[in-house]
């Protein structure tokens, strides 16, 4: 029974992790694009005067999209048209099942891996389910019964099928270095040190593989510079031209969850996953009081900075609106929340001071620190996806195909060859 409950809890955790990254990604996209283009970005929608720097816009958007009428044109293939938006979204959520987010939680006789499913195929599972993602696009393009949609679907399919090859081949180098396809073992392998000071992260042992994987991941998520699935000047909105309402939104949600997945994979395979550089799990467990104190102090500093920012914001914005407008109070409301957080952190610091941690407490602290690390790395790569989209121009369709087949695939073969050669040389020297 306990096993099922733990499994359910873990599944719920990673599910929520993926779903929470979805609005975070949308927010990052809007504010990030505004930042890059020197705009302010969304900042109007408010609940009782609280605007949260545009975060409330997401809620407004979702409410709008859910209650918007879903138009189904008369010429579509109705059954396939209706199910297509759900496919991409569902399969990408499946893929999160094999992503580890911390080292094992172990105390007493328990040793719980922080990963929903440790499949024998490991990361190949992610490749398998994300390859099914294509069907959502194909179905949408074909069922829409429209030339633009069909062309968009064809383009996206061709691109995703082509880039799956360099994606898979660039992974081979990682498998060779870490001698495993299990994500948790790959992450553990990245906890070692290279030459005694550099963490043995994938990006340091497989620099070429990292760029290949990154490029292929961009193509797989249909993001700029590879977003030929749609193109306003060529094929309107591509495969989702005929969609409206929440089904249209589902395609975008699928794209943002795919970004979250690609970011989590990049972090896991090439940036050490949940490994905190130079800090092993044992160090975290043995010094759990110190680790917790550091985390709480960071939180204290963070909430203090938040409080100061909010006070400054209040001072600047007060009186901008006529008296009685609730927006005048926003700085104070958020400042109050920051103050409460500050008090809570200090209280926790005092409470945990000098406490001797039981075994499960030590392990929990280690897990918390590693989850925080993993989340930070994933968020960073989510930002990279948005950064690249708003910085680079897009490729033409034939350029994408040429890049994929004639450049990326030969380079990934070269990467495998060189990796094998280096491993062979190191082995022969060691043995």
């Amino acid at each position, binding site marked *: 029974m306990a096993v099922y409950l733990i499994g359910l809890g873990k599944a719920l955790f990673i599910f929520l992790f993926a779903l929470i990254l979805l609005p975070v990604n949308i927010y990052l996209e809007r504010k990030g694009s505004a930042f890059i283009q020197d705009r302010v970005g969304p900042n109007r929608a408010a609940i009782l005067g609280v605007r949260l720097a545009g975060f409330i816009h997401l809620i407004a958007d979702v409410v709008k999209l859910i209650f918007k009428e879903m138009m189904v044109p008369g010429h579509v293939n109705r059954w396939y048209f209706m199910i297509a938006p759900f496919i991409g979204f569902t399969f990408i959520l499946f893929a999160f099942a094999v992503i580890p987010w911390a080292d094992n939680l172990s105390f007493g006789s328990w040793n719980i891996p922080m990963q929903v499913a440790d499949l024998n*195929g490991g990361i190949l599972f992610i490749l398998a389910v994300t*390859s099914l993602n294509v*069907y959502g696009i194909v179905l949408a393009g074909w069922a829409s019964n429209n030339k633009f949609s069909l062309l968009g679907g064809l383009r996206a399919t061709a691109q995703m*099928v082509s880039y799956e090859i360099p994606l898979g081949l660039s992974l081979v180098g990682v498998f060779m270095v870490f001698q495993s396809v299990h994500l948790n073992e790959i992450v553990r392998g990245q906890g070692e040190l290279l030459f005694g000071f550099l963490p043995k992260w994938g990006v340091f042992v497989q620099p070429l593989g990292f760029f290949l994987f990154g490029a292929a991941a961009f193509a797989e998520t249909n993001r700029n510079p590879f977003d030929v699935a749609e193109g306003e000047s060529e094929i309107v909105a591509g495969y989702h031209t005929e969609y409206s309402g929440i089904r249209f939104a589902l395609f975008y949600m699928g794209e943002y969850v795919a970004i979250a997945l690609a970011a989590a994979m990049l972090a896991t395979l090439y940036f050490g996953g949940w490994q905190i550089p130079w800090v092993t799990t044992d160090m975290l467990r043995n010094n759990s009081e110190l680790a917790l104190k550091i985390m709480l102090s960071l939180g204290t500093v963070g909430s203090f900075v938040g409080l100061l920012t909010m006070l400054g914001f209040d001072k600047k914005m007060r009186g901008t609106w006529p008296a009685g407008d609730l927006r005048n109070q926003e700085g104070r409301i958020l400042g109050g929340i920051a103050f409460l957080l500050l008090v809570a952190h200090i209280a926790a610091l005092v409470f945990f001071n000098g406490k001797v941690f039981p075994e499960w407490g030590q392990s929990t602290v280690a897990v918390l620190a590693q989850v925080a690390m993993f989340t930070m790395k994933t968020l960073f790569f989510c930002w990279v996806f948005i950064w690249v989209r708003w910085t680079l121009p897009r490729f033409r369709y034939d350029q994408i195909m040429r890049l994929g087949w004639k450049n990326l695939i030969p380079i990934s073969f070269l990467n495998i060859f060189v990796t094998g050669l280096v491993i062979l040389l190191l082995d022969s020297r060691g043995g």
Partner: protein
Amino acid sequence: MEVFAFYAFASASVAGALLMVTRRNPLAGAFALVLSLGALAFLFAMLHAEFVFILQILLYAGAIMVLIIFTLMLLNLTPEELKEPPIGALKGFLILAFCVAGFVGFVRVLRTIPEGVAEVSPDFGNIEPVGRLMLGNYLYPFEVISVLLLVAVVGVVLLAKKVI
């Protein structure tokens, strides 16, 4: 629990296969085949042959079927092009008889397998034994097949390219 899951996936697989044969629309048939292959993959997963499960999805449902559907979409056949002349009564009877005979024969062959043979080792279908088989016991056939595939790829490029 396991029995229910088995029957659910097995019937989904059979239903997909039947739909694939009976659908008039080739794309609908192809999607039904995807369903069938996917359900079949879950049967492998239930045998704990996780690597085979992943390969089944990755190669058949994720790659081969995508290419087939891609081709069908490019052809974009209309229903008028797919009208076939109706099958005569004699022909239909012969086909039916052939199917029944085939099914009976298949069941008979199945009956001859002694019980207990179906048991597999606990690491059946995992990545290590599959890899060992492919790159150990069957290394030469494996290499020959890859050469065959290479020949096919080169042939396709040769046929498709107008100027070489």
